[in-house]
Every structure is written in C-alpha cells, then in structure tokens.
C-alpha cells in the first residue's frame, strides 16, 4: 500500500489536500487559456469554449448516450475478462503441469497487439457487439491470468496447515484464508485492467461501432472539431476518476485495513 498517502493524511487534512488539487487544476486551466488566447487558432480551443461544447453535448443527450454505450462495453468486457482470467490464473497457479503446458500460449497472447485481436474479431465475427466485447476481453484475460497465477503461487502453506488443523472446512478456508491473500493481486489486476480496457474499448468503437466515445471521437476527427474531442476527453477523465475515487479506492482501503 502507498505509505506516502498515509503520511500525507496525517500531516494535512483532507480539505487542505482538496485545496491543493483544485489549485493545480486551476493553474493548468489558466495555462491552457493563455496558450489558446495567444495562438488564437481553431485547432486549440480554450477551456471556456470546450466547456460550452461539453454543456451543449450534455443538454442534447449525446454525451450521456455515447458515454453510456462505452461504459456498458467496458463493464461487459471487464466482467468477462475478470471471471475467465481469474479462473485461468487459479488453475495455472495450482497445477504445475498445466502451467508448464500453457505458459507459451500465455506469452503469445500477452504479446499479441491489441489491434490485431480487434481486427481479427471483426473479420471473423463481423462488426457486431459480440465481436467488440470479445476483442476487449481477449486483450485483458492474459494479464489477469498472469497476476492471479502469481497470487495463487504465493499462497501461504503455513496458513493452509493452520486452517486444516483447526478444521476450517472448505468454505471458511476460502473466505478467511485464501481470498484475503488473493485480494491484493486481484485489486492490482483490476486497476491495471481498467486502465487498459478503457483505452482498448475506444479503439474498438472507432474501428467498428456506431456509438460510444470512440465513435464520437472519430466523427470529431473527420470534422476537425477539436473542441468536441476535448469535451469528450474531459468527460471520459471525469468518469474514470469517479470510478477510481468512488469505487476502487474505498475497496482498497477496506481490503487493506489490517495492515500496519
């Protein structure tokens, strides 16, 4: 766990930290505004113009529609990758021979470029939703499997023996002994997984869907509408941050409460 964060928490209150964050964002906006004013070009709209584009898109409902479509794809492919990747990782971590056999497959899939998977999925399954979600999931499954394999390999034999002597039984061993040991690996995989899935979903949308943030960015690109591109980029960052602060960080804090 990040030690630095806890130290900062003790030194400065959350309000002070929020103040610093707001100040730094305001500084960035000011620099942006200055640059846009000096250059005075259609290709670099200032923060005020982008904000008004953002509000227009929001009012028209387009923003919610495209962002919703992207979020749904992220959720579907992410759940798929988590379930399949975790199952594969646990199997590889527990069964040495299976691990030896599939190790080269894993290396192959880990190094397969995302774009190749996306194109092949569209070629083989057509420009469909299933192809899009499958392509994203396939890109993420190997990472998840590798991380969960490490977690499974590092399970403590000492604690397993303790659980056996004290007759925990299968279910209580899983809940109190095994899952808490896998939790940090799982969280690490979720973190890096989300970061990757977000980006791949946009590419998938750009190449073969007719809605979603990726599709909308492509439209804006055709029109050279930089203001629209930046408005969607900001919306995207806001949503990712909301998920990070609202879901992932509380989960991580909860899972790490016992640490010193």
């Amino acid at each position, binding site marked *: 766990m990040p030690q630095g964060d806890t130290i900062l928490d003790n030194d400065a209150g959350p309000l002070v930290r929020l103040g610093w964050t707001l100040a730094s964002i305001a500084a960035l906006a000011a620099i942006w505004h200055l640059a846009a004013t000096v250059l005075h070009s259609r290709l670099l709209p200032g923060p005020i113009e982008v904000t008004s584009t953002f509000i227009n898109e929001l009012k028209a409902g387009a923003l919610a529609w495209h962002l919703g479509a992207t979020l749904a794809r992220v959720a579907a492919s992410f759940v798929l990758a988590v379930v399949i990747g975790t199952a594969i990782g646990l199997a590889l971590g527990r069964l040495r021979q299976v691990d030896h056999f599939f190790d080269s497959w894993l290396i192959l899939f880990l190094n397969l470029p995302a774009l190749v998977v996306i194109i092949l999925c569209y070629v083989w399954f057509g420009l469909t939703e299933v192809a899009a979600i499958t392509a994203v999931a396939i890109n993420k499954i190997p990472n998840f499997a590798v991380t969960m394999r490490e977690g499974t390999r590092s399970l403590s034999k*000492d604690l397993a023996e303790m659980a056996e*002597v*004290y007759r925990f039984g299968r279910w209580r061993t899983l809940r109190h002994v095994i899952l808490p040991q896998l939790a940090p690996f799982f969280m690490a995989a979720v973190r890096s997984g989300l970061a990757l899935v977000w980006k791949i979903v946009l590419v998938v949308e750009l190449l073969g869907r007719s809605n979603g943030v990726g599709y909308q960015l492509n439209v804006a690109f055709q029109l050279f509408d930089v203001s629209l591109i930046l408005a969607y980029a900001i919306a995207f960052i806001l949503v990712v941050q909301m998920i990070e602060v609202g879901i992932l960080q509380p989960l991580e804090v909860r899972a790490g409460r*016992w*640490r010193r």
Partner: protein
Amino acid sequence: MAPLNAALEIRIERKAFPADGRRGPVQVLKDIALSVSAGSFVAITGPSGCGKTTLLNIVARLDRDFEGRVAFAASEPHLAYVFQTPRLLPWRTVSENVALALPPGDPRLARVQELLVRVGLGEVAAAHPERLSLGMRRRAALARAFILDPDFLLMDEPFVSLDEAAAQDLRALLRKLCSGRPVTVLFVTHNTMEAIALATRVVRLSAAPTSIIKDVAVTLPEELRTSPDAIAAEHRRIFGTDTWADGPHGADRDGS
C-alpha cells in the same frame, strides 16, 4: 491392532522426504515408538533438523506420508497445534482469529473474550495481529488453541525468539491454562531447561535419521518449577550437564 493403554500411540518405522531433483531422498525419522499417557506433558528435544516438527506434523495428520501408524485412544480427538510462528490471519482481528478455531454457532464462542482476558489480551481483542508484539501474538496463538478445550495440544517451540522474561511469563501462562484440564501435551523445544520447567517427561531425539536416545520422567514437584536452582539440579540429574544439552542455536536463545 493391539488394544490401547495410552491416550496416544506413535509408531513410526520410517519417514523420508522424497528427492527433489537437487538431492536424493532424506530419511528423517526411524523407529520412533512413543506411548503417551493421558494428561502427561511430554517435552521432545533434540538437535536442529532432527525431525521434531515432522513428528508433530505426523501426529497432527498434516503429514500422512510415512511408514507406521499414529493411534489415538479417542475416536475423534480434539487436537490443537501451536506452531513455531503464531500463524494468525493478519486480516482478521485477534478475537476473530480465536473464534475461527471453533465451528460456526459453537456455544464456546461466547467465551472468546473471557479467554483473551485470561491470556492478557483483553484490551487488544479488536486489534489486528500485525499491530501486536511477537509475545502478544504468541499469546493469541495460545488462546486459539485453548478455546477448543483440546484433548491434545501440540506445541512446536512456541516460545522461541522471545526474551527470557517474556518466555517465562508465557510458560507460567501455559501452566495456568493447562492446570485443571485433562490435556495431553507434546511440546517440542531446543531449550532443555524449558523442557524441565514444564514437562512431566522428557524425550530426547538423536540427529537424523532420528531415533529416541533418552526418555525420562521429570520428577520436579509443581512448586519448584519456577525455581532456577531446582530446575538446574533436575537438568543435571537428567542430562548430566548444567548447560543446554542441545546447545543454544542462534543469538535469540541466550539466557537461563
């Protein structure tokens, strides 16, 4: 199978660890025969690596890969094991760690707090183990064993790596927890002084492949078991020396 007179009969003809590629099979135990009567406190001593822990693991049925048999008089003996490290779940509180030794819904769950107070952990019942000192974690491991009211208690150097004062406190606590209970203890230790302070019988093992080279009753009366002079005298009687028969191993075992 012969009828059992003892609470626990151990007959290990052979125990070897299989070859692991780097070295051939290692024979650890050979012709170990031990009858343990109910309520006795048997200290098992011997040099490092002689298979003391392996012996306990066999009795605990954690290790079933050996030639011989281990038979309990009771068909379903309640067995508790205090390991060489406390082996607490770091993500559960002290009281949760103790409660988890009991089956869900067990009436003894109501006694967890009371037992924690008895072992001196009443104040930290809600703390996680990583916030406690090693001595406190060892106390929690003792509480986890005793909440079960065990018929058999296996202990693998449970007080190692503590300073002598803390180790003495824990020995006193163990004596207190055992008194008035029909518990049979197998206690592995390097420290032959500790063996004499606690046990009613001392079994000494040779270096691997291990067999029993000494098996004596400790006749020290209860009231003299905290007296260093009396312990030293009994040690001299049994081992013929004033120093630890198996020698201090490592810097953490100085003292007494």
